[in-house]
Each structure stands twice: as structure tokens, then as C-alpha cells.
């Protein structure tokens, strides 16, 4: 169930260029159903809209959850100024994540781009716990924006690409994918829309799950701000990212 609470910030640190990790404490983590869900944060009481941020990790027993975010505009800039001990107005957990209980994967490939990487970490941990082999491809702009490479390496093999070649392989995540053919049966991806489209085209034929971003209004499924079209012939014709997603099976929605 979604709840709204004032969560306490128990740690907050910069982990890469404009990128921060924040750990929050409260009752909300006990409500998390799957990796890939998000929290909807009211950063300043004078804001009109909340900001959706993926749950990057959680420890329901301890009541903690981790978010990783990148400064993009006004809201995330204000968030980066908050300190341990401060409280944050959080609504969540929202949406449907990666349905790992109903997935029959044995070897998983995770493909994350930039600030799309966070939800894949919690996913990777849970896949690993289920005995599923995890290979990860992470794409960043340049060396200074790389984060969580080590964390993923503890869970399996990791390939890093940077657009300018300043770290890891030069190029895009899709450049690595041909080398990994035959090393996975199911893939999971989160990142910018163009990347998701390229990844799903390259990996056509594999079972795949994509986490999609859009500007949200309510974040609870009531306002139709976040819809994405479903392919022709679908009974409903659309999906709500905040409520039906943000994770969809490839082909369920039009990218």
C-alpha cells in the first residue's frame, strides 16, 4: 500500500558529478513490493508537484531505503542541499516494478544508462539472492559521472561505457551488447528513452523489461499525465507509467 510520511534523512553524500545518494528511514520501506518501484517526493512544501525517484535499494527490516539522484533542475538542486537529520515528505512506494517472482530467468542482463542505473541495483541484489546470474552494462557520459560500478561488480560481471571514452569502453551501451550474445536469457533496462529504444531493438527476441520515465502529475494513477501508448489492438490502448509501470515488458507499450 502507498503511504505518505515524513521520512528522516539518515545519510546523504555526493557519489559522482551532480549525483547523490540519500538513505531515508521510516515505515514506507515495509510496503515495497518489488524492485523498480519509486517514491514520489515533495521536496519543498511550496512546490506544486512531487518528484518521482526510483528506489535504488531497501532494507525493509531496518526501515531504510536508498535513492540515487542527479541534479537536473530546481527540485533536485534543492534536494541536494538537505542534510542528515532533516525530514522529507515522501509518498510511496508507487507503481509496479520488475515482477521478479514470476520471471523464469536463469541469466539476467542489466542495462542502465546514467540516472536510469539506480533501480537496477535493487533488482540486481534480488536477482542474485534468487540464484540468478547477473551481468551488468552501465553507460555514462564521462568518467566523472560514473557511479556504482563497484557495487554492481560485487554481484556479477560489469561493463562500463562512456560516451567520450574517458572511462571504460568508448561509446554507448548498445555497442557492448553484441559481445554478450548467448550470455543471458532475460534483460532489464532503465535509462533515457532513446537508449531504451536502441536496447530493445538490439535485443529483439529476448524477454525484456524496461523502466520508463515521463513527467508525472499525481503519481497515483488518477490524472492521466503519464500515459504511454500501447500497440494497436490493445484493449485499453494505453498504460499509465506511474500506476501500470514504470516497468513494462517489451512490446507492452510503444517507445
Amino acid at each position, binding site marked *: 500500500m502507498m503511504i505518505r510520511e515524513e521520512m528522516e534523512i539518515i545519510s546523504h553524500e555526493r557519489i559522482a558529478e551532480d549525483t547523490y545518494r540519500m538513505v531515508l528511514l521510516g515505515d514506507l520501506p515495509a510496503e515495497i513490493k518489488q524492485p523498480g518501484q519509486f517514491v514520489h517526493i515533495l521536496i519543498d512544501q511550496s512546490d506544486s*508537484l512531487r518528484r518521482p525517484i526510483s528506489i535504488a535499494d531497501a532494507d525493509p527490516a531496518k526501515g531504510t531505503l536508498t535513492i540515487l539522484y542527479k541534479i537536473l533542475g530546481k527540485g533536485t538542486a534543492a534536494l541536494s542541499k538537505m542534510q542528515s537529520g532533516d525530514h522529507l515528505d515522501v509518498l510511496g512506494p508507487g507503481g509496479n516494478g520488475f515482477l521478479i517472482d514470476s520471471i523464469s530467468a536463469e541469466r539476467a542482463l542489466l542495462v542502465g544508462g546514467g540516472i536510469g542505473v539506480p533501480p537496477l541495483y535493487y533488482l540486481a541484489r534480488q536477482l542474485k539472492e534468487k540464484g540468478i546470474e547477473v551481468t551488468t552494462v552501465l553507460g555514462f557520459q564521462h568518467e566523472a559521472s560514473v557511479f556504482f560500478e563497484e557495487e554492481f561488480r560485487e554481484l556479477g560481471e560489469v561493463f562500463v561505457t562512456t560516451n567520450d571514452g574517458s572511462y571504460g569502453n568508448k561509446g554507448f551501451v548498445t555497442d557492448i551488447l553484441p559481445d554478450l550474445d548467448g550470455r543471458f536469457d532475460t534483460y532489464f533496462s532503465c535509462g533515457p528513452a532513446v537508449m531504451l529504444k536502441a536496447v530493445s531493438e538490439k535485443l529483439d527476441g529476448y524477454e525484456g523489461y524496461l523502466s520508463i520515465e515521463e513527467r508525472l502529475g499525481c503519481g497515483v494513477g*488518477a490524472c*492521466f499525465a503519464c500515459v504511454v501508448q500501447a500497440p494497436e489492438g490493445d484493449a485499453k490502448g494505453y498504460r499509465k507509467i506511474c500506476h501500470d509501470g514504470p516497468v513494462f515488458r517489451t512490446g507492452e507499450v510503444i517507445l
Partner: protein
Amino acid sequence: MTKLNLSLPGLDLKNPIMPASGCFGFGKEFSEFYDLSELGAIIIKAATGETRYGNPTPRVAETSAGMLNAIGLQNPGVDRIISDELPYLSNYDTPVIANVAGSTVEEYVEVAEKISQSSTIKALELNISCPNVKEGGVQFGTDAALAAEVTRQVKQASEVPVYVKLSPNVTDIVGMAKAVEKAGADGLSMINTLTGMRLDLQRRKPIIANQTGGLSGPAIKPIAIRMIYQVYQEVDLPIIGMGGIETVDDIIEFLFAGASAVAVGSANFKNPFICKELIDQFPEAMERYGFDQVEEMIGGAHR
């Protein structure tokens, strides 16, 4: 004992506070947060004759003290609203108001006729003020003769009272209100959103894919208050007031200006519990201003 209840055409309200159309879906999502029976009423998302998929995304943008939206009346169409959405709402002990939209007078009439036959629907809110669709919607809301015509025909087709939702995108709000009063409206609902735009400075293009969007939130409250104040003086119809309500003091301001009841829109996005919280806080706020009956507060600024 404070008396929160009041009667308006078609509506027995436990209290004067309800969610606004388009900001509460068909209620289901919010029933996870609190018991919908606590609400004065529920105004559901706009219904059109056929399924509409609405505008491309992005459909929302934040602004100073408000937001823009251009959803484009996305809805499953009146038949599926009646078969799939209304049965759930009939489980709650609160009157439901259907928001009726269309591109032509015929479409408005078709929707009004069908949905007003449902026993769950106690009144219609005639949406002649949606700024986000290419045809219909706001053109009916900015031309007094068209507004009167659609009101007259919908009134004839409807089994329940009709509240006409006025657009603030006009120079003469009183003229519009008088025109629909004369055409037989049972009440007014005001205001809908104001047409606005925001640009993305990197792309040098509008943030919203539809380019323009409807502005809502605290930024439009002074406009809503002014319009309700002016209309209350000239027109003899009950008004459901809305536009930027976030606090109980905002509600009292609307009642004093001339609203009989109020609707809360965008604030539900910031705080999904807002309607329930306002209802809980309202009796104490009434007492603070020396009232024990909602009815006594209506039009308080005019005496």
C-alpha cells in the same frame, strides 16, 4: 454543534468539500488513502461520447505557485465509464457529479443523456471550458450564445440538475454566467483553468507537447475569487467554487466570495489526503470565524 451539511440542486452534501474533475480520476486510486464516503461529493473525470486518448506527453509542467496541464480529456468514453467505473463509486455514501464534455452539441447531449440515467449520478457538471482540446470545450465556454445553446439542450436531455463549468478565459464572466442562467442551468461551477505556456530554455520550445496548457493551483485563486464575487452579485445560482484551494482558510474565502461549496483540484497531487484533511479541519476553522453553519457563510463578503 457546527452544521457542515447543506442541500444544493440534486446534491445532499455532508460537507461542502469535494475533489475537482480530472484531479481524482474515478475515485478508485484515492480510496486506498481514505474512505470516500467522507467527501461532500465526488466530481469524476470528464466523459466524452467515444474513447479519447488525449494529447501527446509531456502533459504537465510545474509553474510558480501552480501547474500547467494538457491532458486532452483522455477518458474511456461514456459507455465504459457507466459500465466500468460507476459501479465501484456506488459503494460509497457520497453523491457523484459527472463532468460532461464533447466536441459538438450532439456529443454533449448524448453523454448527458446516457450518464444522467445512472442512479449513481446526482448532478452533471457541464464542461464547456476545457482549454486543451482542438475542437469543442472552450469555444462553447467563451461564446455566450453557444454556451446558452449547449446548456439548453443538455438541460433538456439530462435527468439530473446541471451545473455549468465556466471558463475564466473570457473578459465578461458575468455575461457568461447570465447567459447560462437564462438557458436553464441549475448551478455554476467555476473556475476551470487559464490557458498558459512555459518554455524549456534548453530546447527553446514549449515544455508541454500540446504547447499550451491549463494553469491551475494557488496562482489562479485570486482570479477565481474575483469571478465568483462578481457572479454572485448578479446571478441567482448556487456556485461550486474552485481554483487553488489548499487550506481551510482558502475554502472560507471562496464561501465568503459567494461559493456554496468548493472543489479541490491540483492540491490532490501534492497531498493525496488533502480533501479528507480539509474536511477534518473545517469545523474548527468555521468556529474560528464565528460560524456554526456553512449556509451562513455563503456570500459573507457581500453583507
